[in-house]
């Protein structure tokens, strides 16, 4: 059977198709069908010739097999240094083989490649910083995922996630109406405490255009209120768009390049429509990577930049604290051992390590902050990046991968972990559920709100 009912090469385009695939509980039939899915070798080879540029070709060619990347990979370390987990081996035995065989690989090979691409690499890019040649296996795996997606060899949740972006322009079934309605609802809930709190919708020429992660709308709408409160207290002129508010991209994790482009263009359209001075996204790592770092290339923007200056939430927060727009009551700072999780996507990949540490200097009583080891651009992935968190099929492997972060946190002795990234936050939540090491974890927004020194005119009456 070439194309399955659930598992096939056709992307998901509509809410009905999303629901249809979701109805296959756990993707059981989906993975069963995958076993007989045909590989379209001609299509794959044609795609490779069109899309594989000199950088990747060179990387595959010049790898000296020196093994320097081995110890840089937390998945290798946490799997008893299995040689099959060495990054160079992982990519050479998958993408390398496909190239060597000019795309003429079989179904079993493709399913194996899927397992390697989604359960043995989180695209954290740490190996790239240790390779003497600068070869970044994470980037190559991102590319391989694209080839696998095109052929239908993609984990069930990833296919759904990418489909959500196509059908809703959001990673979950959240419509534009849901987004605005939920935001307004949350603001209403908090307006007694913060008189004058509003959510400005579709305001042109605002200083800040704020974009979010659809999960906030769906499950943690307090996060929206918290963002509104902090912008309000800081006196910012901000707005949210009725369309193009979703910053994340499960399509990027899935390797659905076309959906990546659709998603990021919806955000860029909002920027062009509303002409804000800057765009700020929520506390999410991959969303920043997708919209700010990689997105411009997906959208074919010549300058490699989004239409307006786009910064991460931690950059804005650091700035607001530095400039005194937000004032912290020193007596309310964190006074317990606390550590921070450096998100690969904006710390290692964009160098924002100083922004988060500047925030820490404002909100943590001196002497209580403990760095993980290693940290900053050398930090390990949370264990659930690159889509790993969401994939039921590879749950066992993901739980194994959490051990690195668990031990790093345990070593610090901290009971509170700052996790300004949705993916990291989830992975740390899951590792606590899995191993029960007695920690708490938090985004920055709720912590900062508790510590604010509010100007008198912003306090509620009474």
């Amino acid at each position: 059977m070439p194309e399955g009912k659930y598992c096939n090469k056709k992307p998901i385009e509509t809410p009905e198709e999303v629901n249809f695939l979701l109805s296959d509980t756990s993707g059981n039939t989906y993975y069963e069908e995958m076993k007989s899915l045909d590989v379209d070798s001609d299509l794959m080879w044609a795609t490779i010739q069109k899309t594989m540029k000199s950088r990747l070709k060179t990387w595959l060619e010049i790898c000296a097999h020196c093994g320097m990347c081995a110890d840089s990979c937390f998945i290798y370390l946490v799997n008893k240094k299995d040689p099959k987990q060495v990054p160079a081996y992982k990519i050479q035995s998958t993408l390398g083989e496909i190239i060597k065989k000019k795309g003429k690989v079989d179904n079993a090979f493709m399913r194996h490649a899927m397992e390697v691409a989604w359960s043995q690499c989180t695209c954290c890019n740490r190996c790239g910083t240790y390779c003497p040649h600068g070869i970044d296996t994470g980037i190559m795996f991102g590319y391989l995922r694209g080839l696998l997606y095109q052929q239908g060899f993609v984990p069930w949740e990833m296919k759904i996630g990418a489909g959500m972006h196509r059908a809703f322009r959001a990673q979950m079934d959240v419509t534009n109406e849901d987004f605005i309605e939920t935001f307004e609802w949350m603001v209403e809930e908090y307006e007694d405490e913060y008189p004058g709190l509003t959510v400005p919708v579709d305001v042109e020429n605002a200083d800040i255009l704020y974009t979010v992660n659809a999960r906030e709308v769906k499950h943690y709408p307090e996060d929206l209120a918290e963002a509104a409160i902090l912008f309000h207290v800081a006196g910012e002129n901000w707005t949210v768009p009725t369309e193009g508010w979703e910053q994340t991209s499960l399509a990027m994790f899935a390797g659905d390049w076309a959906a990546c482009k659709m998603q990021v263009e919806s955000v860029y359209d909002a920027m062009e429509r509303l002409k804000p001075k800057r765009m700020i996204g929520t506390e999410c790592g991959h969303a920043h990577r997708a919209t700010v770092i990689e997105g411009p290339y997906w959208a074919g923007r010549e300058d490699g930049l989004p239409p307006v200056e786009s910064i991460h939430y931690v950059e804005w927060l650091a700035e607001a604290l530095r400039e005194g727009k937000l004032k912290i009551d020193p007596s309310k700072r964190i006074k317990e051992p606390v550590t921070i999780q450096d998100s690969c996507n904006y710390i290692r990949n964009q160098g924002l390590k100083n922004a988060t540490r500047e925030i820490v200097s404002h909100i943590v009583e001196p002497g209580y902050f403990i760095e993980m080891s290693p940290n900053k651009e050398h930090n390990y992935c949370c264990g659930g990046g690159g889509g790993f968190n969401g994939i039921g099929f590879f749950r066992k492997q993901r739980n194994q991968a959490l051990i690195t972060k668990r031990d790093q946190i345990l070593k610090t002795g901290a009971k509170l972990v700052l996790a300004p990234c949705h993916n990291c936050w989830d992975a740390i939540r899951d590792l606590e559920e899995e191993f029960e090491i007695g920690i708490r974890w938090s985004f920055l927004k709720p912590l900062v709100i508790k510590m604010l020194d509010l100007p008198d005119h912003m306090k509620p009456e009474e």
Partner: protein
Amino acid sequence: MFKKILFATSATPASDHAARVAFNIARGYDAHLDIFHVLGVPSRGYSQVVVDVKTKERVDVDDEYMSWVKEEVNTYYSKYLENGLKFDINVTVGFPAREILRQAKDTNPDLILLGGTTGDEDESVYKKSVASTTLQKVAKSAKCPVLIVNRPAASFWGGLSNITFGTDFSKSSDKAFDFTIKVAKALDCEVNVFHALDITSVSTGKILSQDDIEQKIREAFRMIRAKYEPALKELKNYSMDVWEGIPYIEIVKYARDNHSDLIVMAHHSKKAKQEDAILGSNVEQVIVRAGCPVISVNR
């Protein structure tokens, strides 16, 4: 009085005493009952996995599972659902407090009814995933009064004849008072307005002399008269009292002495720090201890 009631339940024995009250009120006032069950909390990022509240197992939620849970809830309450009770059963996935509030926003009930804390809180699936308790969050943000039945002793609902209204003279206490008067008029019951003077050294910072205490009691009495007596005069029976002590204990004692069927108090939407203190030490403590249902009013 109550036309639409949202009854949020775990559909386990922990909610049994609340269920008794919910079904009694619904019957007594011919109200529509929305039996609402949050079956599990999302887990694993954007995966489809949730941890089921009742079985504590990780499950993949799909339509089939949802309707199965709905059927379970129906079976659990089957003996109450006979004889033309107007109800529907809704189940969903999410963080309980948020989903209860979302349901309230969509359906606009006159009253939200919650069961109390369960004995094995640490084991509870809900507890693990929420920062503060469901009860705290719902009481804080709900737009309608929230009735909480915590102890089995509080689950008797034989109609209302006597309400204790506990006040701290705040703005939200005014709202709670308005609600109290409305209920009292509709159901023709007695209202006891009560203020507890907090003499614990934690809050006063010192040990008060008896003269100070008596002075403060007189002041509180004057406040009660000025603030509430005009409206109280429209009722057949009312009383006013000020006692000193630990506020939540005094309220519980007072309600017991007066054979109150219901305690009404304000929930406060003050800043986080005070909120923990006030809610934690007063409304929530009253809820935990009272021998009758407690209604928290915020807006």
